[in-house]
């Protein structure tokens, strides 16, 4: 095999780099891409998937039969955790019915952040339902918009009908430290869940 130029000197000079991923979900316009932009090391990129003629039957089912090609976009960013680990953040498209296009978008994810706009709670209901259905661990992040009125966290937990062990945190998606803290809250939540799972019964 010709390895010229691809030959890594000590066999593992690429560092054996691996990746992890966290999904950012929530209703349309809740601030998913804003969060990704705030914490990402790179300018957010977009990857697309298409439904083409081959999927015409599916196209018809979801009511876009007049189109030959439907494009769905996924915005993403990344954070270098260390020399050997990269964290990818994917802002999921608002159209949940298209998630199948990416081979099970949530499979293999560490967990998810579901962003909620407190002025439009209902816009994130579908995303929460999907996380529960797919058994993806998640935290709720309340994006505090300038004209959001104060909502006690418990009131919102009640309105969203989520169990008490799921963290609900308020944050500002435009702020890097604030967005980072949401990701940290998710990792703490995952650790807590793991500790429970590891406890002998």
């Amino acid at each position: 095999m010709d390895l010229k130029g691809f030959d890594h000197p000590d066999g593992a000079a690429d560092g054996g780099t691996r990746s992890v991923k966290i999904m950012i979900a929530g209703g349309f316009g809740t601030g998913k891409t804003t969060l990704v932009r705030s914490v990402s090391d790179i300018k957010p990129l977009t990857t697309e998937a298409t439904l083409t003629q081959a999927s015409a039957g599916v196209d018809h089912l979801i009511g876009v039969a007049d189109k030959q090609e439907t494009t769905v976009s996924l915005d993403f960013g990344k954070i270098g955790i260390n020399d050997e680990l990269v964290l990818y953040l994917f802002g999921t498209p608002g159209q949940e019915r298209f998630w199948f296009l990416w081979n099970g978008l949530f499979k293999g994810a560490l967990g998810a952040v579901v962003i909620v706009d407190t002025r439009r709670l209902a816009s994130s209901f579908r995303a929460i339902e999907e996380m529960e259905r797919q058994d993806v661990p998640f935290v709720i992040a309340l994006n505090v918009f300038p004209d959001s009125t104060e909502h006690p966290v418990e009131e919102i937990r009640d309105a969203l009908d989520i169990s008490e062990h799921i963290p609900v945190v308020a944050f500002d998606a435009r702020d890097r430290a604030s967005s980072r803290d949401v990701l940290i809250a998710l990792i703490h939540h995952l650790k807590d869940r793991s500790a429970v799972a590891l406890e002998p019964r």
Partner: protein
Amino acid sequence: MSAPRRPTDPSGLERYYVLTGGRSGPGGGSASSLDVATLILARSAPAPGMQHEHEEILRRCRDPLSVAELGAHLGLPFNILAVLLADLLDADRIEARDPIPASDADRGPDLALLEEVLSGLERL
């Protein structure tokens, strides 16, 4: 009628058909396990006579690059890219490293991994 998403590429469908030889993916085999966060690493240099897109993938993946980034850089949809990557995987020209999950069916939760991510985030 809606405006085309990519005005510089007016013939998307035809182009994809040519690129993949009419295959739509990810259908099965190696393409069906690819994740957007899977890292692709070239195992060999581009060979003469290779399809242009295959060459381009090998060139960009001298260092590990995610499927999502590759798609964004090449302007190819995930499902089309998955077909091209499957060709290269089958020919053993690339290595694919799937994202590490938070917990493994056999070994249970990966606390060390979570600690690693946590300390990385805390340094941001």
